[in-house]
């Protein structure tokens, strides 16, 4: 019988990338991150 294990909360790379990018975009949109040098 397969052992019971906690189902890990995991998101795909794609989803993490979307979340991070949207969070950064929001910071910029709200003016909390004003300039990013290159």
């Amino acid at each position, binding site marked *: 019988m397969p052992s019971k294990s906690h189902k*890990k909360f*995991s*998101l*795909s*790379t*794609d*989803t*993490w*990338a*979307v979340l*991070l*990018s*949207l969070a*950064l*975009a929001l910071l*910029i*949109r709200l003016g909390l*991150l*004003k*300039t*990013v*040098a*290159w």
Partner: protein
Amino acid sequence: MSISSALPDLRESYPPHAPGSDPQQSTSLLGLVPGILLLFVVGYAGKFVEHFLNTYTKAHHIVFPNIEYVLWAIVFGILIANTIGLPKIFRPGVATYEFWLKAGIILLGARFLLGDILKLSGISLVLVAIAFTLSIAFMTWLGHAFKLSPKLTTLLAVGSSVCGVSAIIATQGAIEADEEDTSTAIAAILALGAVSLFTFPLIGHALHLSDHAYGIWAGLAVDNTAEATAAGALYSDIAGKYAVLAKTCRNALIGFVVLFYAVQWAKQGLASAKANQQLQNKAAFLWKKFPKFVLGFLLISLVATLGTLDPKLYPHLAGLVPFGFTKPQVLALGNLSRWAFLLTFAGVGLRTNLRDLFKQGARPFIVGALGEVVIAAITLALVYGADRLYKL
């Protein structure tokens, strides 16, 4: 000890998907830090060398071509990975380069207006469809001619005509390909991707291709997204932008291609029980395979487009304009995207295993290489024609 025995096996150490998509990989966030720092150091070294050489040669009136940081970062990465090798502590973090690639693509959406995306995506999708049909047919014929197994032939065809490693991984599950065929196909695609980094810009310059035409060609012809982005950026910033757009169009089609092959194999009774079950709901199958970062890219582009709307021309949308990004915000997002790509390019170099060029056996490599040359020629002719007709 010989150099080759000291080298890490990059195919095992560098899964094609960063942590999160690989269920077997469970690295803590802290464990990613050394590798991410290394990506930054290698990428920044590339940026520093480009800046230093430009300043030095200008100050001393030396004629020297501008070599983009992209190339330096990749070369430094290749040198490290193929000489001293990477200690284990860096590997999980270095494998996140695909994550940075996707974040970079999403943020790059701010530099595209939705109208441009729709226009270029339309053209790109038509070119992708034509190139895809021709290249699948050619690769299948080539695989038969070289007596490769049908599954290896399928993986090579999908990898070289659609979107590289991601397509191979997605197809592997659908057609129940064995590990060896999958590793061989991935190695061939990655090795050929590394070659394209150095050949595509040379061909583009030799043919005097415009930034737009070259970018779309690189996006349509170079298989792996990271290499396609790098090959575009090596030509110019604008070419890199268009390479990403064309490549994203190809990526968006991945679900349809995998579905096509899954149905073909199921019809022949060769699909696994799991694949057969998944095929019961084709819409869910397509959604599962659809690269979600494309949606992030479109969303960011939509917000950027709102900021550019002229209320006089679009009075019914005037209320939405304040929600869009301002010009300085678009600039900041574009720069964030560049930083994300900087880490990606370092990762491309650190992931490139020169041994794979020789290790995988001659036949799959020859089939892959011949296929790549023909696909590159077909897409070049298509882009050239589309450039004449539609002024890309």
